[in-house]
Structure formats: structure tokens, C-alpha cells
């Protein structure tokens, strides 16, 4: 066991990740039902940048700019947002095993959004419901873990999250049973719950991007202080932190980010758990480096898994299924691997 930092030094690690992510974005434009050659893609991008005419068939231009681009932007947004929220939750709950999924935030937001879909409410209301229910879920989980002091707090937080998540999922199932199978309602709920970028349109993006950015602002501003929340509360307080207030601000910020994403793309699991781990492995736990690394890797991860979702089999797989298929084994690998160096 080495005591020296075995991870790559931060700057090359960033460059490495950045190059990989750029490659993934290019691939995301190229692959799909309607394959686009790299040459055509570069010509089209170059033409857009310079304002010249790419002299490409219109179909290619439409696929690149009207179909693939919004989808890639949605993937970036969702991945970056969930990874940032996951990194923040892990730090503020002093627990590398929590994530928006495990804390019940995703399930809460999912429940809220399902209610919205069930009653056919507009997107804004669905987003508010998702946020409120997500916040309530994490509030209950955190409150319970504060009350139960006899057990390992790490374990209590995870178990409380699983309990609350299960309860909320039961609520979602109830709404599914009650919904009308002959209309679009049931299939809407089912597909949306599985997580997909398919239904995300640019109107959704226009309302989601500002909300995610608002949620990211406190994380960016408080990027140094977030580190101190990973210390025991009294130690952080003795170092000059108003612990309860800081944690509250971050819970609201991370929950807003998660709920916004859930309300447009459904429950895309594993991103918030796996990506911060990978980012921490690359750049270390310091949040002022962990946050940008998580944003980048999260964006790359979701856009990358969405390529798989679109191309793996003949039909399009729901994104949530693919992130689970990629994320769960990767997480098990990280668990086995990082145990030695951390």
C-alpha cells in the first residue's frame, strides 16, 4: 500500500479525460440509425463555424443539427448534473456510497413527476413536483439518519434511503396501476421512468438548463468549503464553517439539479454514484477539482451510454437500462480496485 498519491497528476488527467470526452461527442454525432461519416460531420461543423456552405444533403444536416445535437446537449446536461449532485451528496453526507438514487432523491423526484404526468400537468408543474418530492425524500432520509444514533451512520443513511426509495417506488407503481392503459398515459409513465433522452425536446432543455445552472452556482462558489463537510460536524464547525446552513444550501442545490433532470429525462440511475468515484480516482477528493472533473466525466458518460442505447440492438434501449448495465459492473470494479489505494 503506497502512501503517495497513485492517481495521475491533475492536469494530464484532465487533458486525458477531455480528449476522451471530445471523442465521445464526435462519436455521438456519427453513430445511430442514420450513420454520418466523420468527414461529413467535420465539414458540417466547419461550415457552421465559418458560415460557409457545407454542400451536404439536407438530410445529413437535419440529423446532425436537429436530431443529434439536442440529444447530445440533453445527455451532457443530464450526465453533468447527476454527477455533480452525486459528488456533492457524497461529500456532504461523508459517505462515498450515496448518490441521488440511493438517497431517495431520484425516487422522490420520480414520484413527484409521475403525479404530474398522471394528472396531465404542464412541464413546469411537473418540475416543481419533482423538486418538492425529491427534497422531501432526502429530508426524511437525512432526518431519520440523524435520529438513529446507535448504528453506523453511513449504513443508516444508505438503508434509510433504500427504505424511502422503495416506498416512493410503491407509490409510483400504484399510480401506474391507476393510470389508463388504453391512453398514452401508462406507456408515457413507464418509458419516462426507465430514463430516456428520446423524449427530451429543445423546449424541455430551455427550461432545464437554467435550473441546473442555478443549482450548480452554490456548488461552484462553495467548492472549497464543501470539502470541510466531509469532516465530522464539530470539527468543521471549529474550522469556521456554519455546518447546518452550508449543508442545507448544498442539499437544496443538489436536489434542484437532480429533480430538474429527472423531470425531463426520467430516472437515469448510477451516474451520480459511479462518475464521482471515477472522478475522485482521477483528480482526488478536493471538491474544487472534483466538481469540474465530475461535470466533464458525467457528460461524457451519459452521452457515451446513449450511443450504446441507440446502437446496441435494433430497437432503442431506455437509457436507464444501459447506464445500469455499464454503471453497476464499473462500480463493482471501482469498489474492488480503489479499496487498495484509498
Amino acid at each position: 500500500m503506497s502512501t503517495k498519491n497513485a492517481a495521475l497528476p491533475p492536469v494530464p488527467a484532465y487533458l486525458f479525460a477531455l480528449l476522451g470526452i471530445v471523442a465521445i461527442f464526435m462519436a455521438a454525432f456519427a453513430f445511430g440509425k442514420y450513420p454520418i461519416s466523420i468527414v461529413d460531420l467535420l465539414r458540417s461543423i466547419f461550415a457552421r463555424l465559418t458560415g460557409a456552405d457545407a454542400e451536404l444533403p439536407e438530410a445529413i444536416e437535419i440529423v446532425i443539427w436537429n436530431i443529434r445535437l439536442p440529444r447530445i446537449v440533453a445527455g451532457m446536461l443530464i450526465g453533468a448534473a447527476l454527477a455533480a449532485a452525486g459528488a456533492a451528496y457524497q461529500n456532504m453526507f461523508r459517505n462515498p456510497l450515496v448518490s441521488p438514487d440511493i438517497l431517495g432523491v431520484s425516487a422522490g423526484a420520480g414520484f413527484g413527476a409521475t403525479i404530474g404526468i398522471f394528472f396531465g400537468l404542464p412541464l413546469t408543474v411537473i418540475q416543481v413536483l419533482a423538486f418538492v418530492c425529491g427534497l422531501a425524500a432526502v429530508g426524511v432520509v437525512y432526518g431519520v439518519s440523524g435520529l438513529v444514533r446507535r448504528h453506523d451512520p453511513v449504513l443508516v443513511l444508505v438503508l434509510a434511503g433504500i427504505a424511502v426509495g422503495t416506498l416512493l417506488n410503491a407509490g409510483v407503481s400504484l399510480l401506474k396501476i391507476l393510470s389508463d392503459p388504453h391512453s398514452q398515459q401508462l406507456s408515457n409513465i413507464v418509458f419516462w421512468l426507465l430514463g430516456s433522452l428520446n423524449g427530451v425536446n429543445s423546449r424541455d432543455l430551455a427550461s432545464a438548463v437554467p435550473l441546473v445552472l442555478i443549482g450548480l452556482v452554490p456548488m461552484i462558489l462553495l467548492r472549497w468549503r464543501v470539502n470541510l463537510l466531509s469532516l465530522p460536524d464539530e470539527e468543521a464547525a471549529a474550522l469556521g464553517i456554519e455546518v447546518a446552513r452550508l449543508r442545507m444550501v448544498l442539499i437544496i442545490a443538489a436536489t434542484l439539479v437532480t429533480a430538474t433532470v429527472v423531470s425531463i429525462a426520467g430516472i437515469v440511475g448510477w451516474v451520480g454514484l459511479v462518475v464521482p468515484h471515477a472522478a475522485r480516482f482521477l483528480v482526488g477528493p478536493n471538491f474544487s477539482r472534483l466538481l469540474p472533473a465530475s461535470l466533464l466525466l458525467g457528460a461524457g458518460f451519459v452521452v457515451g451510454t446513449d450511443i450504446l442505447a441507440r446502437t446496441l440492438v435494433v430497437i432503442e434501449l431506455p437509457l436507464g437500462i444501459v447506464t445500469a448495465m455499464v454503471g453497476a459492473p464499473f462500480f463493482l470494479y471501482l469498489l474492488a480496485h480503489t479499496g487498495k489505494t484509498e
Partner: protein
Amino acid sequence: MNVIEARALSIGYGRKVVMNSLAFNVKAGEVLCLLGPNGGGKTTLFKTLLGLLPPLSGEVHVLGEAIAGWSRLAFAQRVAYMPQAHAGIFPFTVNEIVLMGRTARIGRFAIPSRHDRKIAADCLEMLGIAHLGECIYTAISGGERQLALIARALAQQPTVLVMDEPTASLDFGNQIRILGHIGRLRDQGITILMSTHQPEHALRVADRIALLAPGSIAGIGTPRDIATPDKLAALYSVTEDEITAYLPTRALLN
């Protein structure tokens, strides 16, 4: 001048009173050592003095001001706390851990600057662990962690340093090293309030010793007056002979 002053202080949690009507002070530049059996209320007292637990009644004054209503920031700029070392959860480097001590000295939205890094490096240097800077805090030894936590407390540039059993669970060499550092910090003018389970450590570094019997302070004064076999025997509920058998250092004082 009194750096910390407890006035008619009652401490505890809710209805559970741990200690009643305490009155004592920590003088500028001294090392005051708390001795006492387990469950005597040391932790509760520290929490109250650090403003982490509101007193049941009475007042704590730090540097002449009542601490009620102080922000955590104001507190951290004056008083540093060295907790008992824990393993930590995330693999921060020792440098990052020490830089956390700079939090009260930088803006709310800032990250530590080159100036802060210099101070952190100086603190590590002062404790003789500059070579550990880039090591992972979760992977170094217990003694090294204690030293890193002292460095973090020093990076706060405090007037007072409160240390919770700084020599607990360390090997003999590390105990000696830590006590040596405590003596040197005192020489630099830092006031130190510390607790220990080992009277010989108190005898080694303390200017004054306070005996914390369950519920009250049984005595406070110079080691010569306070750390006598009869008082220690009463404090720890053992006989005087047992005390003198285990504490040959007493001979040095008389």
C-alpha cells in the same frame, strides 16, 4: 489577561447537567492541562468552551468577550481545536487537510491561495512533517495524523489551541514528539488548553493543571500544588501508594 474565562458555567445536554457552576480561566501564554477520569465531562466542557454546545447557564468569555452570538468564523479565527485523529473518509492529501485550517482566513467563496499554501507548508515544516505534504491523509500512521491535525490547527493562526487528548493512542516516541511540540508552541506565545489521561504528560508540559472530577473541578493550580499523590488518588479512585508506584516523576517535583 484571561484568554478563556468560564463564569458560573453549567454545562450539559438539555436536562442532563454534566457540570455545575464552573469558574476558572485560562491565562494568556500558559498551558492548562485537564486531568480526570473517563466520563468526567471533559468532552462536554470542550464543546461548551468551543461554542459547539450552548451552556445551560453562565457565560464563556474568550479574549474578554462573551462568546454567545459569535459566528463560527469569528471563533475559528481565535480558537483552534485539535480533535482526536480519525481516519477520514476521502483520500485528501495532508496538504489539503492542513489547508482546511485556512478556511476561516479566506473569503466565503474563495479557495486557498499561494499565500495560504505557503502558510500550510510552513506549519508542516514546523512540525517536522514537510515530507508528508503530498501523502494521503487516510493512509499515514496515527502519529503522523495527529501531527497533521496540529499543523491544521496552526494554519488557523489561532490565539488559543484546544487539544483533546493529543497523545492518546500514540507510541512512546510520538508521545514525546507531540509533548515537545506543545512546549515549543507555548514558547511561541500560543495559549494551550489540553486534556490528557496521563498525569506525567501534564507534569511535563503544563503550567497549571485542573482536576476534573465528575460534576466539578476538584482543584486547579500549579503542578506542584495539584498533582499530589493524595489528590490524584482521590481523582482516579485509587490509593496514594498506587499513584506513587506508577508515577516516579513525582520525586522530581518534590
